[in-house]
């Protein structure tokens, strides 16, 4: 194994190693939650640095060559695992997600007597699955990555095993998730059967021939596409495959909900990038209509139902559905653009940027809920936020910030995310431009429920006997990090540009 190949695998190895280390430490030194948290956070920070050092990142940053490294290259010159700028970008996102989820979980799990080590290990395994998804260029690898991602997810959802809601959410998530995995797998099988390869590059070559030949799509391929579409639509929680989301989100322990709302979602988008954009790109004209319809229904239904929610976790669940819709607009912008046009890259760039921004602002929002619920017994009703601006100023400001960013009000990061998606959509034109308009109308409707939280925090008085909220140190650190990211990416131009550049280069790496 060459040095470059080793470097390419290093981040994944680190995360998996860290997970195992946590398991071992827990056996050797049981019940040392703080130690575990510290080691895990430290390890993740190291991983972040390693990813940055390995690269490749825009501007030639990183030890690895700009064009990336392929591993297990076959005769056609395409690898099974790849570390290019897209991988680096996604890995950064995933590790940040893991780190933040970890920080937010510590102060929540402890008062409930939930073991930290198991949580940490499970989370890290899930993240490693996500990282596999981000780097796989082989159907089998992608399938393994997906399972590695979702199986720990089921466990995390049911993590509070004595809590009826948690287990109920978990079983719903598990049953439906497995169902969709089976559907996805069948689609995968059909595609690999009818293209004759598991390699993404090879499949793309075959399909390019199909697309160029103007021959009708074979029944097998069409069914394969249908099954794959359904499978990934479930994973990203697109309407009408979203049913599991509200229940699973509501039931899970809040930090887990935070993780579920971003980790599997972004990872599933990574899967989409590797599968649909990489392998199925030649057929994009065929799947574009479905993306458009899914995007439209997803954001609209997500927002409409979120408007009516009184439970903040359910509200954020529907909101996350809506955000899936927005990200799908980016995908549609890619798919709607002529092959090779700059609009293609624009769409993916927007999707990636949106995903990254969405991860920490949404995690931040859940973290605020978690921080509020640090003391067991605090419900997830929006009313429990009443007067929070006064009871816990930091929490109030941070939550306001996340809500504004989720709404897309400048100069927060969330605004730039939306703006990029719209640029891409308008760029592509046609029905996708219509999606941009629909997206903005949705954003306006969404403002209602996001701002409602602000209303409760600042414009309503706390109920009598409301106790002051104390925020743990880990949570505080995590909140500051995510809030700072939300603000800094918005208002510090070089940072904005840098993140956009990363997304752009990542998108280009794919095309």
């Amino acid at each position, binding site marked *: 194994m060459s040095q470059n190949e080793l470097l390419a695998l290093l981040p994944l190895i680190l995360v998996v190693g860290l997970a195992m280390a946590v398991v071992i430490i827990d056996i050797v030194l049981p019940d040392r939650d703080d130690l575990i948290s510290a080691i895990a956070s430290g390890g993740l920070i190291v991983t972040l640095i390693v990813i940055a050092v390995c690269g490749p990142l825009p501007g030639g940053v990183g030890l690895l060559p700009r064009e990336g490294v392929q591993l297990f290259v076959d005769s056609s010159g395409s690898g099974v695992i790849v570390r290019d700028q897209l991988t680096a970008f996604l890995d950064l996102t995933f590790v940040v997600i893991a780190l933040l989820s970890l920080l937010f979980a510590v102060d929540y799990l402890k008062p409930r007597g939930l073991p930290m080590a198991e949580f940490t290990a499970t989370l890290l395994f899930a993240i490693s699955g996500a990282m596999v998804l981000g780097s796989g260029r082989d159907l089998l690898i992608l399938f393994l990555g997906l399972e590695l991602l979702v199986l720990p997810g089921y466990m995390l959802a049911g993590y509070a095993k004595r809590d009826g809601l948690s287990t109920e959410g978990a079983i719903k998530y598990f049953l439906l998730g497995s169902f969709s995995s089976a559907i996805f797998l069948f689609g995968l099988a059909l595609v690999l059967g009818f293209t004759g390869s598991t390699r993404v590059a090879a499949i793309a070559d075959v399909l390019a021939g199909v697309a160029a030949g103007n021959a009708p799509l074979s029944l097998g391929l069409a069914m394969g596409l249908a099954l794959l579409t359904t499978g990934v639509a479930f994973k990203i929680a697109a309407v009408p495959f979203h049913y599991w989301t509200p229940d699973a989100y509501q039931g899970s322990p809040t930090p887990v909900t935070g993780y579920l709302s971003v980790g599997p979602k972004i990872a599933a988008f990574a899967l989409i990038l590797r599968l649909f954009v990489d392998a199925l790109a030649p057929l994009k004209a065929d799947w574009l209509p479905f993306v458009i319809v899914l995007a439209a229904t997803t954001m609209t239904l997500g927002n409409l139902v979120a408007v009516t929610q009184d439970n903040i976790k359910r509200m954020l669940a529907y909101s996350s559905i809506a955000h899936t819709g927005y990200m799908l607009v980016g995908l549609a912008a890619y798919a709607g653009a002529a092959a090779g046009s700059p609009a293609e890259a624009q769409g993916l760039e927007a999707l990636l940027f949106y995903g990254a921004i969405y991860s920490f602002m949404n995690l931040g929002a859940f973290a605020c809920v978690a921080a509020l619920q640090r003391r067991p017994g605090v419900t997830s009703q929006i009313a429990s936020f009443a007067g929070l601006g006064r009871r816990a100023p930091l929490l109030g400001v941070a939550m306001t910030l996340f809500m504004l960013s989720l709404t897309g009000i400048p*100069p927060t990061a969330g605004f730039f995310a939306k703006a990029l998606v719209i640029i891409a959509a308008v760029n592509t034109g046609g029905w996708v431009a219509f999606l941009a308009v629909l997206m903005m109308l949705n*954003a306006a409707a969404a403002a209602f429920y996001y701002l409602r939280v*602000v209303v409760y925090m600042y414009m309503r008085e706390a109920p009598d006997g409301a106790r002051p909220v104390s925020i743990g140190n880990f949570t505080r650190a995590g909140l500051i990090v995510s809030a700072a990211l939300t603000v800094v990416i918005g208002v510090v131009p070089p940072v904005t*540009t840098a993140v956009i550049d990363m997304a752009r280069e990542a998108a280009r790496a794919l095309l």
Partner: protein
Amino acid sequence: MDLTGLPLLTGVIFTPLIGALLIAFVPREREALTRWLALGTALVTFAISLLLLPGFDPAATGFQYVETADWIPAFGIQYKLGLDGISLVLVVLTTTLSWISILASFGPIKSRLKEFMISFLILEVGMIGVFLALDLFLFYIFWEVVLVPMYLIIGIWGGANRIYATLKFVLYTLIGSLLMLVAILAAAFSFQAATGSWAGAFDFEQLRGFGFDPTLQFLAFGAFFLAFAIKVPMFPFHTWLPDAHVEAPTAGSVILAGVLLKLGGYGFIRFCLPLFPQAAHEWAPLIIVLSLIAIIYGAIVAMVQPDLKKLVAYSSVSHMGFVTLGIFIFQPQGMQGAILQMVNHGIITGALFLCVGVIYERTHDRTIAKMGGLAAPTPVYAAIFGFFMLASLGLPGLGGFVGEFLVFLGTFDYSPIAAAIASIVVILGAAYLMWMYQRVVFGELSDFLKGLGHHLTDVTPQELVTLTPLIALTLAFGVAPGLILDLIQMPVGEVLARVGGPLTGAAP
């Protein structure tokens, strides 16, 4: 003193932000310090805005004090500021009303003072930024920055039904502005597609010379129109305004009426017309009709309002109708009148809200029916209120008249019938304002007010300090409107040259 080298525009925009940051570090208990720090910041900002005047050349074309820096070069987004006469007068209006509003909230704002002052100063940042931004993206950002502090100001320090009002305000405004964002991006993209580069794609000075495709113009104009029409607000997008005004605290109402509504009018002049001239001609007849409706309708509905603030709010709908009317007849007098009207409406209506605030401070009520006979116990107040009432109904010699008349004049040039319809408002305006004044100030002291006893005091020196500058300005702009007209002559000419006025077509 040579000021040309200093980034004055950046200074005037971000001075309030510095003040807000400083206030953030003031302990909550130090209320006096917070107050004076906020006022000081606003006054410094005001002073900086005045520093712009000596170096400004009214005869020069284009923008002055231009500052440019790359922001997001990938999309050609710049931090680009600059001002012409139109922005200049509106910036000075903003800085003036800001310190007055801050001073006016010394008494009324009793809870969460620190947050209030911070919100208010950030609001000022956004407002000034909107008037100075020459990059469409930057403009949009400032446009939205205005939204959040105002949302908080109404929502936290507002009246009983404040949450409904503030959500309505925000959602309404957002629907417009988000679509405008789509239009901005579409315009920029269309520029990029034509030139093959993002450089300058958001640069107003580049875009205004770029002839957009007619369909895009039509749609983009529609989106901009919606955003600005909601802000102005034009009939039938006006219903958020009475609610917002009624619930907002006094200072919020002052700024809302004084500056926020002007953002829409400014947007029309600065962006809609030069960017989409063809579409402007296509849309103009509709807008003129809506303006005429707003003028008359606002006045009639104002007549029967039971609440002082609602009355003034509907009068704003009517008065702002002149602004849109004056803009969309594409005629020099009309547009100059519209700008003058914006400034004067800002001053006069702002002052009227201050006057209502004075009553409210003493009575905690704004119901006209409960008032009466204020002239006897509070003569100075009655005189000042009367002064602004007269200014608002367009008494010649005071600020409101010249702008209104110029709009009428321009409209008459385009369509005498339209002018005749619009000018019915001089009767209606006199009717609702004088009726209100009669019920509040004349007559015997009402039982409700009698019950207040010695609490019913005349204006305090502090209130006088807030009102006197506005009296002076109202008089000055009535007697010497040239102070403003000389500044806006050149930019109005430029806008009209781009839009290709006057409006032609089958006007009666």
